[in-house]
């Protein structure tokens, strides 16, 4: 069985979907992040001064980029796969001889593409406000890719388990957004008092933001190796969970 053609078909379909609706998918993050940079970076940043030796604007840029990657990788897969379930055209894929891992890889690749594309757009906007320097291009790109992968997988699981449109908005609104804001995007975890610092260490986004920031400015609150290890581990667990759900036909088959 040729698996490349079905994989390419799913990926092209996914890319076409989010490019076709670019005013919903690419424009909003550009506007939102411009406001972030303007308000937090320019207006307030000048009064905050240096954090861990870096100007505040330079400090927040990586986190804001990664926040966009997280949100768009997740929302692309969760909305696309749930719509496919809702319209029942998931049946096209189930009836066809497409292996489960190809279905998963196809949808997750679509999410990664959108996450990285939005991240690039936000990065380009950031260049208007800050002098972007790259400390390690490998760490930057690797962490962006792994973060997009992790949240695309999480979005896939959410879509598989969801039974209504409410179910696909609960996790982004009540879990993802708070974790992103509390993930050290706008501050250093070292600035937090004792108990809050300990609680923050349980937030996985903190690890990804710090490793990604290290790639830009060479500063991190957390050991970068630990960040990569943890992110890779979570990706593995989410990928296996997704494959088990597909094999059982959870939310898809009777």
């Amino acid at each position: 069985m040729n698996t490349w053609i079905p994989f390419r078909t799913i990926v092209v379909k996914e890319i076409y979907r989010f490019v076709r609706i670019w005013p919903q998918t690419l424009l909003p993050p550009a506007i939102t992040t411009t406001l972030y940079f303007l308000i937090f970076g320019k207006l307030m940043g000048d009064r905050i001064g240096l954090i861990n030796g870096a100007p505040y604007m330079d400090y927040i840029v990586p986190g804001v980029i990664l926040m966009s990657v997280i949100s768009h990788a997740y929302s692309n897969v969760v909305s696309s796969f749930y719509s496919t379930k809702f319209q029942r055209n998931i049946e096209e894929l189930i009836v066809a001889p497409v292996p489960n891992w190809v279905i998963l890889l196809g949808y997750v690749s679509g999410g990664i593409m959108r996450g990285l594309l939005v991240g690039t757009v936000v990065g380009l906007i950031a260049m208007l406000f800050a002098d972007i320097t790259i400390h390690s291009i490998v760490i930057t790109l690797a962490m962006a890719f792994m973060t997009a992968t992790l949240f695309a997988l999480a979005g896939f699981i959410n879509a598989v388990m969801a039974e209504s449109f409410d179910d696909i908005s609960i996790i982004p609104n009540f879990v993802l957004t708070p974790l992103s804001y509390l993930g050290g995007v706008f501050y250093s975890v070292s600035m937090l008092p004792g108990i809050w610092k300990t609680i923050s260490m349980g937030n996985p986004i903190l690890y990804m933001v710090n490793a990604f920031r290290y790639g830009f400015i060479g500063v991190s609150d957390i050991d970068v190796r630990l960040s990569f290890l943890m992110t890779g581990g979570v990706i593995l667990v989410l990928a296996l969970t997704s494959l088990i759900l597909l094999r059982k036909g959870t939310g898809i088959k009777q």
Partner: protein
Amino acid sequence: MKALSIRNLKKTYGNGFQALKGIDLDVEAGDFFALLGPNGAGKSTAIGIISSLVNASSGSVSIFGHDLEKERPQAKSCIGLVPQEINFNQFDTVQSILLNQAGYYGTPRKLALQRTEQCLKQMDLWDKRDTVSRRLSGGMKRRVMIARAMVHAPKLLILDEPTAGVDIEIRRSMWKMMEEVNQQGTTIILTTHYLEEAESLCRNIAIIDQGHIVEHSDMKSLLARLNVDHFVLDLAEPMAAAPVLAGFKAEWVSEKVLEVAVPKESGLNELFRQLSEQQIQVLSLKNKTNRLEQLFMDLVDAKNAGGAA
């Protein structure tokens, strides 16, 4: 060569409902096969299992010799499914629906474009290829589903009530298309509630009821078993009650309408002779139901009267 072979297939849903209670079914390659049954009989469950949309509880399904569990990709490659409900992406164009489907089956792009053009032309949809599918009429959407199911050139085409809700003109044009597809060598399994559709198109038939196959034979011999025809007679003069006719069962429907059961061995000549004797003038007559419908009801009623095993 068997296009489909099912053995002891059972399905019990999570709520305890036993939809299939161990069915056996064979469909020969090249056949045009009718799978009939009342609502809730188990037809859709059987089709769901054959097309991998429903997990079987036990039993085996083999498609052109490929076991659905052991050789799933090969078995799936042989099938094209036209489901009951519209299930394509309503925001896609007609052409992209077919191209995506061909892609899922591993068809190279160039061949997929050729097959898409061929199938859309066959379904009389080529001029709608760039139309967003939600803008199509109901009949066109049904034809898109048939074209989509055929784009990877399946050996077995499963049509689950493909003409439901379409007008008679479109239905007849779809029958013609289905006959052409079958004549080109594709095996077709058809489920339908329009029994005249099954009678005119299909060569073999299975009737499923309450999770059991209650009939599995060729259409001709099944219809030959029907030894009573029911006719509705329009009378010239009103009658207060049904007349007594030796060898016939007459039923009063209204003042000028009678319904008469005519055994094949008696024939219409004898009926008209007796009616003439009683000076009952008949203006016109018609078959009450189509023949298969009568048989279908008899078989299902007999099963229900006997109690499902």
